[in-house]
């Protein structure tokens, strides 16, 4: 859509911009984590770019990419005045999520406050310089970060003790919700996906 932002970024930062593409018209730049805040400041303050609206921030876990940074932090920005968008990515953390840290950009966009808390809560990325880096969706007692691929899919951490079946006098175990030919294609609970008439 607008190569402008990507061109300017490459010109200004050079090798710090690891890669860029505009697939499906979505301008994307992968940046060195150490330059995260500098790039954000530039995007916000350059008058021709003027990215004044933080749209979204999220973490995507790629356990297979442990060497180049396992957790990909994805930021979407929009400029209300220039009417263009950009997507920034930074890859942080090794396979144990060590070094999964980024500079907080709450001083640039105040709206990033809760989004960074969400990424911290769900994916376990620490934002250095964040004024109040607490969990935002899960409860304080929760251990781990549920959107990391290493978090066991069926692990729950109840705050109140579950009733036992003796206490209740009735079966409480949840029935298998899906038959072998139903449900999600990736084989929930180890059930292989079965070919059916619908396929």
């Amino acid at each position, binding site marked *: 859509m607008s190569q402008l932002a990507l061109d300017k970024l490459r010109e200004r930062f050079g090798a710090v911009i690891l890669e860029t593409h505009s697939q499906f018209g979505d301008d994307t730049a992968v940046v060195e984590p150490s330059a995260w805040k500098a790039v954000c400041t530039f995007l916000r303050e350059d008058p021709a770019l003027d990215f004044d609206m933080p749209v979204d921030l999220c973490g995507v876990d790629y356990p297979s990419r442990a060497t180049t940074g396992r957790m990909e932090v994805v930021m979407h920005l929009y400029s209300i005045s220039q009417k263009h968008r950009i997507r920034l990515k930074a890859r942080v953390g090794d396979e144990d999520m060590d070094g999964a840290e980024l500079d907080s950009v709450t001083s640039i966009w105040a709206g990033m406050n809760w989004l960074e808390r969400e990424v911290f809560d769900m994916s376990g990325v620490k934002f250095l310089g964040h004024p109040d880096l607490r969990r935002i*969706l*899960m*409860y304080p007692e929760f251990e781990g970060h*549920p959107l990391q691929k290493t*978090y066991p*899919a*069926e*692990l*729950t*951490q*109840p*705050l*109140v003790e*579950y*009733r036992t079946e003796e206490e*209740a006098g*009735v079966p*409480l175990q*949840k*029935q298998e*919700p899906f038959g072998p030919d139903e449900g999600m294609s990736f084989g929930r609970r180890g059930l292989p996906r079965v070919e059916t*008439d619908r396929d």
Partner: protein
Amino acid sequence: MGDVNRSLTLDGSEQGFATTRVDALLGWARKYSLFAYPFVTACCGMEYMALTSPRYDLARFGAEAPRFSPRQSDLLWVVGTISQRQAPVLKRIYEQMMEPKYVLAFGTCASSGGFYDNYTTVAGIDKVIPTDVYIPGCPPRPEAVMDGLMLLQDRIARNERRPGVVKPRLDPVAEAKALVQIRKSAKDPREVLPAIKTEEARSLVERNGGAK
């Protein structure tokens, strides 16, 4: 009111009297004076609003009065998904209610967690508090909820605390099988009728007569 009627004795004078068992009378009285505490957390709330509005008119069953204090209510409507974070609140609300108290799980999420089988959702409120009636549906239609309420009233009148589940009016399995049969058969769909067991599925096939 069956028990009361059967043992009613009147001699036609002003000195008439009626006899019944105390528990039957109490059950009959409780059944029509359910004060509801709506614990509404999710999209089922929309269906709950429809239910209490004039079109479906829950007042007909004597269970329409909401009390937003657990101490004044005796029927806890759990309407929607309960997350792990809400579970302690739900339990506290339940504990604050006065005996006798009843709990109604409105919708699939409250009944079993629904498709939220993950780190954040309680897989059914019965893991935390005793539940009297489960109403499946995503969300359940108001008719299904009324079925559930009548089921609960029936249990209350008989002073029985065994949990009850509202049965679907259409059996989804039979329905799906019938539709597959219709789709596969190149002949007149009505030829598959004898193979269909349930009344509901048969009427469904008849309604869909020529449509393939």
